[in-house]
């Protein structure tokens, strides 16, 4: 029984997703509890798998008992065991958080929302858990299609944003599929571990080099690397609050995970560091993404859209960190995947609360929030400090490793970009904090001081998950050495 736990991580959300409409036929309000239950089980299975991997090393699960490379194999090593816990825990928290927000934004469509929500999570965990290149493509499309549907039901203008997302997303997925095709043509295998064994003899084949280019180009679109990020801000700004809180932190991070997986366990690191100039290109792409994302974030007047551009900049951190190609920087990049997922979900849940209370998410809607919603804003400040990189929040530690890695690699442009973007984050968030302290004094009557805005805190079902994320940000920061020495050190390849 315990040997079957890895497959439950995918099967539970998949089956529960298809059963959700049936549950909805019986009692509509049960769908919420049903998906929370499904995701709790999924999280438990992931956490159990993580501990199994920490104690006993990588787990190989053969689908239907077929031996690789003929059958599809699930491979869980330290890197994706961590990603599984991140994905399932964040989706659980967002599912708990989504209750009131979905009731308000999608009153009569909650049943279908939770169906697709679970399908989205299935896609995410499937991408992370699989050890087969084509299987990964299928899960990538499951996640993308569910994402299109979740974004499309958002506010005015969401369908148009979704259409652009579909076109760009399909191009990205097709490039990935072509890259897989080229690898299959040259090796005759789709199993990652098998391809890893066969490929080194073929590194000078043009087919393999084209495959590298196609795979990375496809993933760059999916992860919204700066010049091809254009689909992201519109789509995630206009999605329903609960959907953007789920997709915005996870979709980009999972594409980054796939990039790391492809570069380190399908190809050997030597290929893209010594044979091809891929690593250099990645650092410069990272620099451009960081500067571009930070600059665009400064120009925004919409809270969610600003957060979207911060996500774009953070993608640059991780791509650049991997491109620096030394153990410290890669350690920082992997830690930053974890941290950034947690920080971003924290900020997007707060943006969702602002949208729930005011109906809009402009920066000007943040007025007076510190008095109205002290707990929510406390969580927001923790998330903001973490994005800026203030110890002891988790954002500081990954940024520290990235900066240290840049110094080791002597790549000063990346170092400068990192520091500049931290400065820009300071400006961005202090602007919001300043707006949050502007008390709406009605008609100059503030002089007598008798007037107080009543505390108008978010409902508990939204507040508790948000606070939990803020606590997680600090805890991950405090225990980062434990995470590094037990998990991430094993995920960094030997260079």
């Amino acid at each position, binding site marked *: 029984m315990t040997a079957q736990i890895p497959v439950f991580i995918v099967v539970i959300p998949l089956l529960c997703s298809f059963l959700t409409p049936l549950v909805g036929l019986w009692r509509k309000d049960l769908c919420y509890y049903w998906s929370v239950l499904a995701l709790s089980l999924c999280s438990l299975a992931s956490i159990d798998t993580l501990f199994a991997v920490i104690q006993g090393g990588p787990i190989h699960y053969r689908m239907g008992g077929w031996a690789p490379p003929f059958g599809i194999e699930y491979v869980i090593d330290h890197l994706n065991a961590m990603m599984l816990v991140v994905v399932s825990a964040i989706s659980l928290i967002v599912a708990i958080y989504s209750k009131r927000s979905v009731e308000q934004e999608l009153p009569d469509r909650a049943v279908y929302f939770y169906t697709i929500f679970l399908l989205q999570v299935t896609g995410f965990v499937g991408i992370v858990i699989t050890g087969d290149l084509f299987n990964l493509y299928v899960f990538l*499309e499951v996640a993308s299609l569910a994402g299109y549907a979740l974004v499309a039901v958002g506010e005015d203008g969401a369908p148009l944003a979704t259409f652009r997302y579909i*076109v760009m997303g399909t191009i990205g997925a097709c490039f990935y599929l072509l890259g897989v095709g080229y690898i299959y043509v040259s090796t005759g295998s789709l199993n990652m571990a098998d391809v890893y064994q066969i490929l080194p003899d073929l590194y000078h084949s043009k087919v393999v080099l084209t495959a590298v280019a196609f795979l990375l180009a496809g993933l760059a679109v999916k992860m919204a690397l700066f010049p091809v990020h254009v689909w992201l801000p519109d789509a995630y700004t206009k999605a329903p609050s609960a959907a953007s809180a789920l997709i915005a932190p996870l979709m980009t991070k999972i594409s980054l995970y796939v990039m790391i997986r492809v570069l380190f366990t399908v190809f050997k690191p030597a290929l893209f560091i010594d044979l091809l100039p891929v690593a250099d290109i990645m650092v410069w792409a990272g620099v451009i993404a960081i500067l571009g994302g930070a600059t665009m974030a400064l120009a925004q007047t919409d809270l969610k859209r600003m957060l979207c551009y911060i996500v774009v900049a953070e993608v640059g951190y991780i791509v650049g960190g991997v491109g620096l190609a030394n153990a410290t920087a890669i350690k920082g990049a992997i830690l930053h995947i974890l941290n950034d997922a947690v920080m971003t979900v924290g900020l997007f849940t707060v943006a969702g609360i602002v949208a729930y209370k005011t109906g809009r998410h402009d920066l000007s809607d943040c007025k007076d929030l510190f008095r109205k919603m002290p707990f929510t804003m406390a969580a927001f400040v923790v998330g903001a400090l973490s994005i800026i990189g203030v110890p002891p929040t988790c954002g500081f530690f990954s940024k520290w490793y990235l900066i240290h890695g840049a110094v080791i690699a002597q790549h000063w442009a990346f170092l400068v970009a990192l520091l500049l973007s931290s400065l820009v984050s300071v400006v961005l968030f202090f602007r919001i904090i300043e707006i949050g302290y502007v008390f709406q004094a009605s008609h100059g009557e503030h002089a007598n001081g008798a007037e107080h805005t009543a505390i108008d805190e978010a409902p508990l079902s939204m507040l508790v998950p948000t606070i939990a994320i803020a606590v997680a940000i600090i805890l991950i920061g405090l225990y980062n050495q434990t995470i590094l020495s037990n998990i991430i050190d094993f995920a960094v390849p030997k260079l």
Partner: protein
Amino acid sequence: MFEFIVNYYNYWMYIGLMMIGFYAMMAKRNLVKKIIGMNIFQSAIIFFYISTSVKKGGATVPILEYAHGHATHGIEHGANAIDVMQYANPLPHVLMLTAIVVMVATLGVALAVVILIYRRYGTLEEDEIMKLVRRG
């Protein structure tokens, strides 16, 4: 050079189709035309996969009447083992069945979104929609 083009004509056609689809997705103003371009783009990749499995010289579908270990009385052991040159590789076909399903699903979602856009703006021309959006 001519030989190179003629001998690999299937790959040239896949590249050609893919570029047509790519062009339609990027340059066409009409949203439905963009979707058609997207479909051509995906079909081109399916053609690519299928043509990698082809073998010249009469290779057929791998349906094995007497597979190993079955009904081999009277026939020498191993006589029915697969001769790879006689059979086309079935795996790309199987992969593409999955890819076609993905393609159909994408097409369905894209058309549904286009219907939403049409209901909201009353047009499918991108420039007209952008005008309406800017006007607010």
